[in-house]
């Protein structure tokens, strides 16, 4: 069946959210992603559950959207969210006058913001810069973007949506000035496909410019690179922000077993969006500013560096492209460009993915004359449950095994589907992140995992201190036995995985990270001799 009501191109949080919203409203949806889910900007940010406080002073609208979505995500995606709380700190070189304005703006936007004694802030978060002169408590948290996207995809599929990853859109099918479908190629098998729908949604983030161009439509986008660093352990338990006008590297977010500092902001050419490297200057800046928030960062091991590209959209009424819209941008190309059946959803942020999806599907409903209300603000995502909190499940599971407890932390109530009945299934593949054989099998069978990098996004396998040094090989073997892959394919996958890990390690390769790199090279290029893989014949 290649006929749908809606085709969504792009498997980030937004695309996944649109697919889920469509599915819940009974709209037949197909989601097409050229890579794996959450590979673009979705998976390349802080993982901050914004309270909206950051935007309160300068962008009231974004701030209000953030706090509303923040409260919704805590409910519908409880297993993807951690209620860490957040601090906005004022340092001696910052102005306390800004703090007053900040609190006032937060309250006006509906964000609880309470000034607390700096001493109390230090008690709340011992890693915070002790020279702080002011602190404001806000409802920030952390959110795992991979889990969030995977849960949306899972729910979309449960409600009848079809999802194709590793599928690239070659062209839009245009008939009498109307987009009526897409022609695709599966990037793994080379297989061609053709799918038709009344409406095609462009949810490609920064790559949306190229998809729009296939319909002859111009969207003026500005790729803005943001670089971040991951530290080797959880330095802070509370999100630490700088209480000043938003600037570079002023947010420090704890997540799982690590801490992330970011971000920088720089314009990059479009041809670099597919291959982001973090520069030494960016590393320098992130460390310098980051250690202002938490001085311990100066002597904490950096695991890796990564960068994403924000899809900033130039306002349509500004031909110079300088005036950028930071908010949500929904473009109905029928009214804007005279191309029917084509909608672009872009701008916005990870925090507002659900709202972006709601607006998009509202427009779809209007166009298709469907009368169906959005329920995504109430309907819980798979893994979250009203009756059982993730904490409760985790606590029960700890008694059984560490791996099972970690699985609940990652998959919420869905972890019940992970087989832990035998020693073989409970055996740990990844010791840093406590990923069991059963969890790997669950991810491969239920969560659309095609390779080791996909597996990392679903389970955190290889995201810990050793960056996948030993677990990659084990996971490859488990995956191969589930999927019956040939060993050349497994080795190519393994090589791809360690190459990807090293990409993030090499910009910060000093101290223990270089030692880890030396071991990685020794093991995979030396002991295993993977560099000659495929050259044997």
């Amino acid at each position, binding site marked *: 069946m290649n006929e749908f009501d809606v085709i969504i191109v792009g498997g980030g949080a937004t695309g996944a959210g649109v697919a889920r919203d469509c599915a819940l409203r009974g709209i037949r949806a197909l989601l097409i992603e050229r890579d794996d889910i959450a590979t673009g900007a979705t998976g390349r940010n802080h993982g901050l559950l914004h309270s909206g406080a950051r935007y309160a002073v300068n962008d009231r609208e974004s701030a209000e959207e953030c706090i509303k979505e923040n409260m919704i995500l805590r409910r519908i995606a409880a297993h993807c969210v951690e209620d860490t709380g957040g601090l906005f700190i004022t340092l001696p070189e910052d102005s306390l006058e800004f703090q007053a304005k900040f609190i006032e703006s937060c309250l006006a936007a509906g964000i609880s913001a309470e000034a607390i004694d700096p001493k109390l802030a230090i008690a709340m978060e011992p890693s915070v810069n002790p020279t702080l002169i002011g602190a404001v408590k806000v409802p920030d948290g952390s959110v795992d973007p991979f889990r969030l996207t995977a849960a949306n995809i899972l729910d979309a599929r449960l409600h009848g949506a079809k999802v194709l990853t590793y599928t690239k859109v070659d062209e839009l099918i245009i008939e009498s000035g109307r987009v009526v479908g897409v022609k695709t190629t599966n990037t793994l098998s080379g297989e061609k496909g053709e799918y038709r729908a009344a409406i095609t949604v462009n949810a490609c983030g920064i790559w949306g410019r190229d998809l729009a161009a296939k319909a002859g439509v111009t969207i003026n986008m500005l790729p803005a690179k943001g670089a971040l660093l991951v530290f080797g352990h959880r330095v802070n338990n509370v999100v630490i922000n700088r209480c000043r006008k938003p600037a570079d590297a002023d947010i420090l977010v704890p997540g799982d077993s690590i801490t992330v500092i970011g971000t920088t902001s720089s314009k990059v050419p479009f041809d670099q969006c597919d291959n982001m490297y973090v520069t030494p200057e960016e590393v320098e800046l992130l460390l310098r500013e980051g250690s202002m928030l938490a001085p311990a960062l100066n002597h904490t091991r950096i695991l890796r560096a990564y960068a994403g590209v924000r899809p900033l959209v130039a306002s349509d009424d500004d031909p110079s492209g300088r005036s950028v819209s930071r908010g949500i941008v929904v473009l109905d190309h029928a009214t804007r460009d005279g191309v029917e059946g084509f909608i672009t959803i872009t701008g916005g942020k990870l925090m507002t993915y659900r709202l972006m999806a709601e607006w998009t599907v509202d427009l779809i409903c209007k166009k298709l004359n469907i009368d169906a209300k959005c329920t995504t603000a109430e309907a819980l995502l798979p893994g979250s449950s009203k009756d059982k909190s993730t904490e409760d499940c985790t606590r029960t599971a700890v008694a059984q095994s560490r791996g099972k407890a970690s699985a609940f932390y990652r998959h919420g109530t869905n972890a019940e589907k992970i087989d832990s009945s035998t020693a073989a299934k409970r055996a740990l593949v990844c010791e840093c992140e406590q990923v069991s054989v059963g969890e790997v099998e669950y991810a491969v069978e239920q969560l659309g995992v095609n390779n080791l990098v996909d597996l990392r996004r679903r389970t955190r396998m290889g995201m810990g201190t050793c960056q996948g040094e030993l677990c990659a090989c084990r996971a490859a073997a488990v995956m191969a036995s589930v999927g019956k892959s040939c*060993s050349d394919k497994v080795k190519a996958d*393994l090589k791809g995985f360690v190459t990807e890990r090293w990409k993030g390690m*090499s910009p910060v390769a000093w101290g223990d990270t270089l030692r880890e790199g030396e071991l990685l090279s020794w093991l995979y290029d030396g002991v*295993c001799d993977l560099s000659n893989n495929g050259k044997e014949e």
Partner: protein
Amino acid sequence: MRYDTVIIGGGLAALLCGIELARSGKKAAIVTTGHSTLHFSSGSFGLYNGAEPLKAAEALAPSHPYSKLGEGMEQLAAKATEILNVAGIATVGNAEANHYIMTPTGALRQCWLSIEGMVTSADGKSFDFSDALILSPEGFLDFYTQFIADSFKRAGVTTTQSVFSLPELTIRRNNPTEMRSVTVARALDKEENILALASIITREAKDTQTVIMPAVLGFERTDVLSRLEKITGKQILTVATLPPSVEGIKVERALCKTFERMGGVIFNGHTATHYSMEEGAVATITTSKGVTLAANEFVLASGSFIGGGLQALRSGVAEVLFGADVAAPAVVELTNRDLFESQPFMSVGIEVDEQFKVLIAGKSVENLYGCGAVLSGYNPVKEGCGAGVAMLTALKVAENIINR
């Protein structure tokens, strides 16, 4: 405490240097933090990549450690082999022509020496058996038998795969992180488990005469493979697993014992942290446990970054103990973005003169020698010469000290 020579480091280079000095009558001491990089060993020793490693090594740049060995490379290689054999490590191979060892991913990689009993091939294409049973412990995730089976298939060897378990391993597996190489190897130190495994081999192999197993046959005992061969009448061969490398640990242990048997002293768990100089020579070193050792000569065999001899800082690379001169590559970047390309940091290390004396502030220190992975000027992974440089430079340093 006073010794003739104090060696800093506990890996392959330190141990070979120590053994050679001890057996020539020197009172030698080794100061080591603990586990050396032998724990990540492949069970083979590389001299240099290429069909003929000795010939290939003749054409190297003057800065390469091999270029400082002079005429005696062949003799040093023979001596290294002899020391391994003296330590009870039986090896296959010679320095004239490389042979091939099967890696954990089933690749066939060139090497100079391999530990006897491992899967090797003379030409990198064929084996002298036509069928084999691949037998691995059930639930052992660090050895993927399909890699091995596919590699044999390419070489025209038919294989069947089977798993085995032992009551002890079944209990161990209740702990989800216990099924690692060392656990299995320790279980196979026990005679009852060897006998149980032997009957499993007999039952599973049937008419097949060759059995391939992960290199986990015994931890303390070195005769497990031969015991199994004797009981079953089969040829048993092993392939290295992912770390920890049981074969590497056994080599480390055998060399330590040999060194101690010859009168050497090992300060295990000691990190050399301070040193003192007198008249341009090193007088003493002091360890993390407060032990001060005086000696006539000192050998720096502290390894590269993993070993802890070198440290990469944001500002550059430093040699950790003496702050010795570091030869950094001409390029600014320490790393290449592609993991499988040559990594510049691999060739970073300390500078030594023609006699392997360590340079500090541009001057050779009269009684301080450097050997092994702490040296600069070679890429152990890309040139396949990590073990060769470690052993040959160590023996050359020992020779220079003995002739001093």
